[in-house]
């Protein structure tokens, strides 16, 4: 059973700040989703391999050939903060 603690844990892992109202709403919604999976679980899947990918394709590979990078000037255009060619990020908390 999904509890408000689970929702808080998942929200923290996903870096989401939820209000109390959202927490209780999501607890109910997630519980309904999990409940639905329990229903699916009732289906007999003996002998069915777990699905690894949604498309029936395998082995999409590229050769080990160099492609020149577009250059950092272009790539850093959208960086909120930068310094000496580095992306600058806020203090990393514990």
């Amino acid at each position: 059973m999904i509890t408000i603690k689970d929702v808080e844990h998942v929200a923290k892992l996903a870096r989401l700040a939820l209000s109390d109202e959202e927490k209780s709403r999501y607890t109910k919604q997630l519980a309904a989703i999990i409940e639905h999976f329990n229903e699916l679980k009732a289906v007999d899947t003996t002998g069915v391999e777990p699905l690894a990918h949604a498309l029936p394709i395998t082995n999409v590979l590229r050769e080990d050939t160099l492609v020149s990078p577009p250059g950092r000037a272009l790539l850093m255009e959208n960086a909120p903060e930068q310094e000496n060619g580095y992306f600058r990020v806020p203090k990393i908390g514990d």
Partner: protein
Amino acid sequence: MKYEPVIGLEVHAQLKTATKIFCGCPTTFGGNPNDHVCPVCLGMPGVLPVLNKRVVEFAIKSGIALNCSVAHFTRFDRKNYFYPDLPKDYQISQYSQPICNNGHLVIGGKKIRILRAHIEEDAGKLVHAGAAGLHGSDYSLVDFNRTGVPLLEIVSEPDIESPEQARLYLSELRTILRYIDVCDGNLEEGSFRCDANVSIRPVGQTELGTKTEIKNMNSFRSVQRAIQSEIERQIDLVERGERIPQETRLWNEATQSTYPMRSKEEAHDYRYFPEPDLPPLVIDPAWIKALEATLPELPDSRRRRYMEICHLSADDAYVLAESKEMSDFFDRVIALDTPAKAAANWLIGPTQAFLKESLIDFAQTKVTPENLRDLVAAMNTGSLNSTTAKQIWLDLLREPAEVSAVIEQQGLSQVSDETKLRSIVWQVLSDNQSQLDEYLKGRTKIRQFFFGETMKALKGKGNPQIINCLLDEMLAEAASAVK
């Protein structure tokens, strides 16, 4: 009470490809920050990773060399966590179906099982501004050049029984990966990294103790020392009746001890799920066979051959097989009918010393197998003495040349002509009459002086055996003349 350590190692080996695992950016070490990045490895929205074929080939080769079974079906998973060195906020790795499983290495007769080896992408590098470490810095700088560099993570079972065995396992693993040319094994540049899981238990107990994970060791010696220090710390805790907390600890080279890494509150909740951007891999047995055929003879097999067929000692066999280049060279020299022991002595003694001194690899030297054959032959026929031969060899390691040409050009050929040597010894004895008188009175140590003077006259190139025989003969004659 007596305790035994239980050690498992996780190695991250950087695969030696030209480009990254999922994009065409170069994997070259260094460079200006963020020069080797593109939208794919920066994890920009809408991009699609495409797996580098050579990464798969290198992983398969490694699996074969590490006695693993290579999976016929393997896939990728997302490992989710937030850290600024990870631009996508997840790492593409392999979780439930890794490419290699159930291998082993034999270290000094002990089988160390390898649980798995899987492919994953490396993260970026953080620079913490205004402080030596993360703590105390106001902000951090990120260089994503290393992001997406292909890694093979090789996880051993907790079968390792001592810090020394851990070092030997790592050394063997590195040697093998270098032999099969999938990893350069450079510890300083981080292309071969190791974390250790360490626990202790009373001897005889089968249940495992609480383990700690040790990180931040950048040499084989520091791995050995870090594990030793951690074992001692754990025994100390247990003896004092304290509990060992499960935690990650960092090795401090300066203090030669480990200290706890500050734990993340929600650590190790990675919520792995199948990577939707990458289709699974089906590995045809024919592909594995084709790659297996490209593998060279591995170090363990070479060592056994050197001991059993060439009759070398275990120590010599280990030194020779340490690098593929030297071992290949040795094989070519003995294929030229050079006595194995003599060839091995040259490669192990003077060559190792030279490599250590000049900080280069054997591959960077200029010598040819024919050089060594000729040198050994010239010594065997007596046309070179060992001092001169050593000088020639050291020159050959630096500059390409022919042994016969060097001997001729530099007039280094050993003087073995008996008539010539006899006249020089006679000259030395007659020029030093007072010393000869002393000798005849019983100061036999003076014989060494005559030998030295003779060699001096020959600029060190005299054949020492013949000179000794002649000295014995002529001194005996002088002695009987006095009587």
